[in-house]
């Protein structure tokens, strides 16, 4: 019987098919860059708010809502600014509620469904640690507006990072069940870390301008910080996984479309209404 020829797997296979090939620097790079920042915060804030009223305790409910609130606030600042930069009369609301999946620029990590509380905390720890290091650098951005937003947000995110790291530790080093769930949560989210550090042409261009920052410059700090949390959680380091990329050019998980359908329903259904 005929069979497929054997496939030689090169050891250095990277992404970069039609799905996740990096795009060049097109259109208005500052606008695009602000969408990345704003959409990360918006989508994660939306996700976290799904916990509201359903968390493991009232205290946890409060802390999740608190993070969601910070993130929605950041999204508003970044997206309002994006609208101004674009100069086509759009504001944060029109950007949040009237773009479809292909025009969203968030990373895959923040779109991931909440799953159980362990997965939510894995996602939060991996993201907030990155966002904290990022905003620490963007606070010195050559763009004053970005610098001001980041300087304010970095304090909020420091708290998110601490809170999520503590939960990863507590759950990893808690009971048999919590340990298994925490390991599963990290396993689910681990493949999305590489995208956080992706230096595509736009990221490179913004870094050169001094508006953005070289993400590779804090990769080592990030890895060390996350490794330390996982160690303290007494969990084995998750094995490397093939990076999943594409969010920065509008190629997302299937989950994002459903999140947007919910979030955008009112402004889309009643386009003439003001709220």
């Amino acid at each position, binding site marked *: 019987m005929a069979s497929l020829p054997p496939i030689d797997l090169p050891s250095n296979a990277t992404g970069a098919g039609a799905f996740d090939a990096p795009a060049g620097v097109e259109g208005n790079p500052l606008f695009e860059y602000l969408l990345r920042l704003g959409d990360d915060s*918006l989508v994660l804030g*939306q996700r976290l*708010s*799904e916990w*509201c*009223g*359903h*968390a*493991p*305790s*009232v*205290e*946890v*409910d*409060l802390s999740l*809502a*608190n993070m*969601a*609130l910070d993130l*929605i*606030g950041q*999204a*508003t600042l970044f*997206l309002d600014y994006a609208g101004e930069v674009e100069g086509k009369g759009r504001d*944060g*609301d029109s950007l*949040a*509620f009237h773009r479809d999946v292909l025009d969203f620029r968030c990373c895959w990590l923040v779109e991931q469904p909440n799953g*159980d*509380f362990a997965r939510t905390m894995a996602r939060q720890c991996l993201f907030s640690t990155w966002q904290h290091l990022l905003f620490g650098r963007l606070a010195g951005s050559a763009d004053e507006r970005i610098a001001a937003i980041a300087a304010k947000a970095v304090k909020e995110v420091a708290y998110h990072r601490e809170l999520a790291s*503590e939960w990863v*530790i*507590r*759950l990893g*080093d*808690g*009971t048999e*069940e*919590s340990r298994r*769930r925490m390991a599963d949560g990290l396993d689910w989210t681990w493949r999305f870390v590489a995208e956080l550090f992706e230096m595509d042409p736009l990221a490179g261009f913004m870094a050169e301008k001094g508006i953005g920052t070289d993400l590779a410059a804090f990769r080592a700090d990030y890895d060390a910080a996350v490794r330390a949390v996982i160690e303290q959680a007494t969990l084995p380091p998750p094995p490397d996984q093939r990076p999943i990329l594409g969010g920065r050019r509008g190629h997302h998980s299937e989950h994002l479309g459903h999140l947007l359908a*919910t*979030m955008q*329903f*009112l*402004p889309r259904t*009643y386009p*003439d*209404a*003001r*709220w």
Partner: protein
Amino acid sequence: MYTTELQKTASLGATEDPERLAAFEARVAADEFIEPKDWMPEAYRRTLTRQISQHAHSEIVGMLPEGNWIGRAPSLRRKAILLAKVQDEAGHGLYLYSAAETLGTSREEMIEALHSGKAKYSTIFNYPTLTWADIGAIGWLVDGAAIMNQVPLQRTSYGPYARAMVRVCKEESFHQRQGYEIMMVLAAGTPDQKRMAQDALNRWWWPSLMMFGPPDADSPNTAQSMRWRIKRETNDELRQKFVDITVPQADALGLSVPDPALRWDKARGHYDYGEIDWEEFYAVVRGEGPVAKERIAARRQAWEDGAWVRDAAAAHARKHGRREAA
């Protein structure tokens, strides 16, 4: 109201020491605060525990109908305001559970009583939120009714409860204004928005009036509660105040209150209003509200799904000798 008598009040046992009881009643009558370590009659402790825990449960269950719209709030600003509001309600729940715990019942016991259906919570949260206007109507009417009931409780006789109410009332008045502002925008909006606003008022009006509890004639424990300064105004007095304040607000919105009997009574200086359907109220108290099963199921589910998290936090704290965080 959040705290209305949804269950029978414990009767004053004959076993209390008459001298201590007289001293206690004199302190209460003099508007002194009773503190957790002070002596108090058992019936006072039981009545208060029930009232405060009922209030706490109402705050927590009340997160569900509003939480239902956070994900669909129509603008970033509205989303942030609603998130902050629901977060405030969680905070109210926490202060109130803490206040109730000072009377000797643990939070776990109270939550267990809620989940088993033994403890009640405000009937209002057993109605569904169907449109965005419901978020406006809840803020305006439900938080409005809550304020009406809770402002007098800032002077209630039990210190921890009174102090919790001071904090809570400040936030409730923000909620009320924010809700009314949503209604203003909708009432002045497109025909679809105006329809939502009117429909929300139609659905929430009567349940809001029911929040104040049964008429005084059917509220036999009011006298005792008033004497103990656990209650400072009767159900009907509070309900009348609410109607008098709210009807002109509805007029200002250009919405009509769904009560054909509503009219201004010059002689009384109050609005007369139509008969409340007490059968509906008692049905909802019995757990037969339109979404009562959904509410309790959601609370139970959250609690059960969260059990492994709370266990893990406790196990971690034991291992590391630190205080439990969950």
